[in-house]
């Protein structure tokens, strides 16, 4: 585990020594900032209209601002995750530094865990932006913080699963662009697989929609920790990391 931490520290260092971390932070900050601003603006306008009409429907910050924003973040994540994971192994393979890691007295799994953790930490640092914005809601409103935390948990689980898949894809090629593009395709598909359930109810459609990350993410956004959904994400994380380990091993046998 100590070795995994060494790798993780080095990966984080690489992210923040290169422009990539700052680029991602800026992009995410801008995009999320825009979403946040529009969500709050709509909320304010609706609130004023209701007051003018004299209707007093209860308005809820959690349901009307935070919940849709979490859905937005999970979609923005689809674009960010390939950018985070594409370099993890592809770059090491291209520059040959993988030889250093593979001939050092550490286990493959420690290398993989370290890299995955670094990716997850970078993603978490993106989420800090959202926390910054949400802090305003607490300053001027009175949202419930428990569903907020559950939402964050859901985001992290979803990202962890997709990052594990991205890490795996990064071991398959030495070309970062290929790794990134393939990861994006897989992430997007996993996101939209849920749509089939709306028009088809055959077994294959149910299976397909079960593999969709968006379906499993929804419960978290509603503030509910559904063990079925949590287990789904944890399983995907394990599967992704397991495939990465197998892929690294086969790299050696084939090479």
């Amino acid at each position, binding site marked *: 585990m100590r070795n995994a931490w060494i790798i993780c520290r080095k990966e984080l260092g690489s992210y923040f020594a290169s422009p990539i971390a700052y680029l991602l932070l800026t992009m995410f900050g801008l995009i999320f900032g825009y979403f946040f601003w529009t969500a709050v603006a709509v909320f304010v306008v609706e609130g004023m209209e209701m007051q003018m009409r004299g209707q007093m429907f209860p308005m809820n910050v959690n349901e009307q601002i935070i919940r849709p924003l979490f859905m937005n973040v999970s979609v923005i994540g689809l674009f960010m995750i390939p950018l985070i994971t594409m370099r993890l192994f592809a770059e090491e393979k291209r520059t040959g530094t993988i030889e*250093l890691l593979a*001939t050092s*007295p550490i286990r493959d799994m420690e290398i993989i865990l370290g890299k995955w953790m670094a990716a997850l930490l970078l993603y978490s640092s993106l989420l800090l932006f959202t926390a910054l914005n949400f802090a305003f809601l607490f300053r001027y409103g009175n949202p419930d913080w428990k569903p907020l935390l559950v939402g964050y948990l859901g985001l992290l689980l979803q990202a962890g699963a997709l990052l594990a898949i991205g890490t795996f894809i990064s071991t398959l090629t030495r070309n970062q662009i290929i790794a990134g593009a393939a990861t994006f395709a897989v992430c997007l598909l996993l996101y939209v697989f849920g749509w089939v359930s709306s028009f088809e109810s055959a077994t294959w459609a149910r299976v397909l929609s079960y593999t969709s990350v968006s379906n499993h993410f929804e419960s978290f956004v509603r503030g509910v920790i559904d063990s079925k959904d949590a287990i789904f994400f944890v399983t995907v994380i394990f599967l992704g990391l397991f495939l990465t380990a197998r892929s690294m091993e086969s790299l050696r046998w084939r090479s």
Partner: protein
Amino acid sequence: MITVKNLTKRYARTVAVDQVSFEVAKGQIVGFLGPNGAGKTTTMRMLTCFLPPSAGTANVAGFDVLEHPLEVKKRIGYLPETPPIYPEMETAEYLKFVGKLKGLRGADLQKRIDYVSERCAIADVKTKLLGKLSKGYRQRVGLAQAIIHNPDVLILDEPTAGLDPKQINETRDLIKDLAGEHTIILSTHILPEVEQTCEQVIIINKGKLVATDSVRNLQARARGAESVLVEVGGRDGSLELPIVQHKLEQVPGIGRVLCKQQVDGRAVFEIESQKGQMIRGDLARAIVQSGWDLNELRPSAMSLEEIFLQLTGSDATVEAENEKVEAVPEGVQP
């Protein structure tokens, strides 16, 4: 220190390393010699546990590469063909990272970083980004990285490739310097390098072991018997080959006379002496006294290079080699 038995690496279509066996004793410097694509890198990768062998065994520092890879990895330092550096890291930061990877901690780590920085003469670039370093510095950082945990065995894949002559000499001296403490295998396709730095040579070609011997023995093999090329010309434009041949064979100390070519009135012979005999003087006298012209007489002593070519069985390799020396090394192909 290193025992390799019938080591084989097969890929889908090719056999990269075919039943190679050799042994390296503690503290030796061994040159791993062969043309490009001979299987040097593959063999080294198997010794460093980067690639698993398809068949055969390799035992490094008392541990089998397949059964105890972690124990082997603790005891080896490896410098791949391209130094495995992260361009976005500073030299000191990189050495610290590698040191930690190899299991060094705390005061020990700092001590070793200082030691290898001084040893490899990279102390002056400690705070520079690795990506900005010159090829020579990168190579030395690569070497520093390989010795940071004071390994028993050092495996260096073409440590002097791509360096300028001065840097090559410095690197060779450094390697020779390290020999006392470590057992070193270095691969190269440059023959003088082996003559200068190594005690033992392992020559492989097309994945097969061709020869393994000490440098001294190989040189003795090269210089044991004198071999000369003689061009003899007839006075009046005609030369009777059998007579000349017979005459030459009469000269004392001659081992073998071989007519290599004959063009109107001239003939070139390759003549080998018996071991330890000097024949050139007698040979010249015999030819001139018989009334023929001695157009040319030059020694054709076999150099290590010729032995190498003879063993690896192709002339094309040397030219290919020379090209490679100048070419920029390509990316590693894992």
